């Protein structure tokens, strides 16, 4: 009986995974004409502005030395700004992770693949954990600057590693491969 339930669930998952192909084709078509800067993670850079907005949104009594640890209750407009920022971070991470995937996936050597995959997992784990926490708080119209900072840090690490991957390719004279990586996957 368990196998039957599992089989049905897996079949639904298979259909969902196969449907992603269409979304990928659409994304590829858009990517071809996009400026290069937009193909790389960039939203995380606006963390300072978000932090400033959160500070302004904090009541005077809460502006203490350990402000970062507080859970700020947000009003509609501020909440939307943070939600948009988190959405941007997710976009950043998926852009970075995709480039990472293509590069390490083509590794001809098992040992190198394992080591690169380990590096990726070390970024993925804090990212998904922080994302879950931040989204949970946002559901309750709250946000903690410390948690948002941790999420931003995970995305920034991914962005930094991806930029360093592209730099290695460009330094090796493979500028065309970088273009293909950014636009064809």
């Amino acid at each position: 009986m368990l196998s039957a339930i599992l089989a049905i669930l897996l079949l639904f998952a298979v259909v969902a995974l196969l449907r992603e192909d269409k979304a990928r084709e659409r994304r590829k078509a858009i990517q071809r004409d996009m400026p290069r800067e937009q193909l790389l993670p960039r939203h995380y850079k606006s963390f300072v502005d978000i932090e400033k907005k959160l500070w302004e949104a904090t009541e005077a009594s809460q502006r203490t030395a350990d402000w970062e640890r507080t859970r700020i209750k947000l009003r509609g407009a501020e909440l939307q700004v943070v939600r948009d920022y988190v959405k941007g971070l997710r976009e950043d991470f998926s852009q970075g992770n995709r480039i990472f995937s293509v590069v390490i996936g083509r590794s001809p050597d098992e040992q190198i693949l394992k080591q690169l995959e380990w590096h990726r997992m070390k970024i993925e784990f804090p990212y998904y954990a922080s994302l879950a926490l931040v989204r949970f708080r946002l559901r309750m119209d709250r946000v903690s600057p410390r948690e948002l900072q941790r999420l931003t840090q995970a995305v920034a690490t991914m962005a930094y590693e991806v930029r360093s991957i592209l730099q290695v390719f460009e330094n090796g004279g493979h500028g065309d491969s970088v273009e293909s990586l950014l636009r064809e996957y």
Partner: protein
Amino acid sequence: MNLSTFQNYLWIAETTLTFVLFALVFARGLHRRLPLFAAYVALLVVETVAVHWTYHHWGYTSSAARYVYWSSLGIVLLARMLAVAELCWRSIRSSPAVWAITRRWLALLALALLVYALVGAARNNSPAIALLLTAERSLDFGIVVIVFALLRLRRRYDVWLGAVERNVLLGFAAYSAFQTVNDAFMQKWMMYYFRWWVSASVVSFEITLLIWIAPLLRPLPPPAPPSILFSKEESVTLLMQILERMRRIAEEMKRIARSKWK
């Protein structure tokens, strides 16, 4: 055992669809792209012809019919397993290291399925039949798991498939999922409705055949070349450099974190 009119229609539809699929696979040249899948389809045709010819000549309950049915089931099962393995290879062949790891897991899974089937057979009075039935059940569930794992791997390493390969995968997953459900229910509650349930199983296979036929109605698009970024030697050199940089970044991040929390 006589078949009802509805079951006769189902049987005619299944046979027709199998022949249509067979013709399309070879007419569109899919046998060059997926030779083991083409062999599986060819074996389905051979099975259909052999089983019905035997029933016609020797009768449904004859020992010849029994022998032909069970032996053809064994051959088709093996062909199905190989066709799924071929799809796995085609899906991730452009990721040599991923394929090297996946291949070992697939071999281990095949071994586990075989051992499970052998253990099931050893306890039974008709070991050969029990072996085939247990192997079929475990293979059905195994295929659903393999297709899911394959698609997850494909997503993780950004490896993508053509429309035909996608449909072949979906067909295998859909049929195997239905068979798994079928086996689970048949054992406990559905024996009373045996005929209807067998009909449902035939319908599920016909749906699978339609899933496979659909992309073959148009000429096949040219196969996408394997997406290789660099030569093997170049890849190793560049990835070693990347790894070295990543280690340095990780060290730097640790140092920053330490200084920050002091």
